[in-house]
């Protein structure tokens, strides 16, 4: 093809970044098609950065390819260790999110089409599911049994409380987005449509706090059952579908948020040894 070859001095200057732009451009074009000059250039390039990069290539190509959720998170600029932890969260799987969307969508649909008392019952159902969805999500987000990375997490040189917080926040955020979207479809969209927000936060934090003593799954069941009993009895007594979500219920939710936050900040140390098994 070509018989022209770059002078060793030019190659050395180019490797040092000392060659002027015009000749560097000309050399670069030549290097694309001349393996002899590429080989000659290679001997003038420092070995240390190439060795470091090669080590990185080896590690990256031996490790399994990240899954879809993880790749999306990485693309969005999430740090790789956090992305891996989030991607392993059971309650952030597509099937889980789909189940939540279906349950809320069904309740919202029923509230739209059911006549009279049926619509009230459907609205009650919607608020209850929306408030409890993050609790269920957090229960499945960490702890023995459900989390495939639980044992790895306990052994990892990382604060378990950080894992708990990162995952809980991600679960809470996705739950709130799904519930918020479903709430828009409710008939007569008003304050009642977002009345689940504070209870959801309060119940979720209470679950996390209780999980420092008992298994997360048990904590979630205790919280959900207690709250369901209270909400159902208040609703029945006042014959008002959103009775449990009026100012009394909202205040209680705020109290739960504050108390849980305080207790949680004092109980952090428990998470260092893993959650109660």
């Amino acid at each position, binding site marked *: 093809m070509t018989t022209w070859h770059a002078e060793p*001095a030019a190659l050395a200057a180019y490797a040092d970044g000392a060659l002027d732009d015009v000749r560097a451009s000309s050399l670069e074009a030549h290097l694309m098609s001349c393996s002899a000059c590429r080989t000659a250039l290679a001997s003038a390039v420092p070995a240390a950065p190439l060795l470091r990069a090669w080590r990185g290539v080896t590690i990256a190509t031996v490790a399994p390819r990240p899954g879809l959720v993880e790749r999306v998170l990485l693309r969005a600029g999430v740090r790789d260790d956090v992305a891996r932890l989030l991607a392993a969260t059971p309650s952030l799987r597509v099937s889980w999110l789909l189940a939540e969307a279906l349950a809320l969508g069904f309740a919202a649909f029923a509230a739209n089409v059911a006549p009279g008392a049926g619509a009230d019952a459907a609205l009650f159902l919607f608020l209850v599911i929306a408030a409890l969805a993050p609790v269920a999500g957090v229960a499945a987000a960490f702890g023995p049994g459900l989390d495939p990375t639980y044992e790895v997490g306990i052994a990892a040189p990382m604060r378990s409380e950080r894992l708990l917080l990162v995952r809980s926040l991600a679960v809470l955020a996705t739950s709130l987005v799904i519930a918020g979207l479903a709430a828009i479809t409710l008939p007569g969209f008003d304050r009642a449509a977002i009345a689940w927000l504070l209870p959801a936060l309060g119940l979720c934090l209470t679950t996390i706090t209780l999980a420092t003593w008992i298994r997360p799954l048990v904590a979630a069941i205790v919280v959900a059952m207690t709250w369901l009993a209270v909400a159902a009895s208040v609703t029945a007594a006042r014959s008002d579908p959103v009775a449990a979500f009026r100012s009394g219920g909202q205040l209680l939710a705020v109290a739960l948020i504050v108390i849980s936050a305080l207790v949680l900040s004092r109980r952090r140390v428990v998470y260092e040894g893993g959650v109660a098994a």
Partner: protein
Amino acid sequence: MTVRADGDDMLLRAVAQGDRAALEALYRQHAPWLLVRLSRRCSDPGLVEEVVQDTFVAVWRGAGRYRGTGEVPAWIWGIGIRRLIDRLRRSPAPVVRQAPDTVLSAEDHVLLGVEHGDLGDALGRLSPELRAVMQATVLDGLTTREAATLLGIPQGTVKTRAARARREMRGALA
């Protein structure tokens, strides 16, 4: 020369089959010039190192997608320069190298043995700003947007500088 190109093609096919030794051979051949060429476009050596690493990880994963059209080095460069731009987009620190405006003596020209044609002279007479834009858009084959990210200037500036550079070079060659 053609034999070598075929060698690259064969290495790439082996890499697509999961041959780690072939990847290493490919790295030995192409990582050095890639490192130097990227270094001329980014003054952060750590970043360049990461981009070289990213590029060969992408080669490992995407070797099956190489269709044998065009030369392997050009394919690798296409991946490398785009990875660099991706990184610069994420951390838009002013890491763009200022083009050294070295004036070479007549002896330098003779010593280095590089022939300087009319085109080289015309390119050499451009200001460093215009030359950088010409290099990114014409020689590196980047889009206006990619060139803007690489050089750390707005897209509109890339367009006006490219137009001015073309005008000046046309004048110099006329």
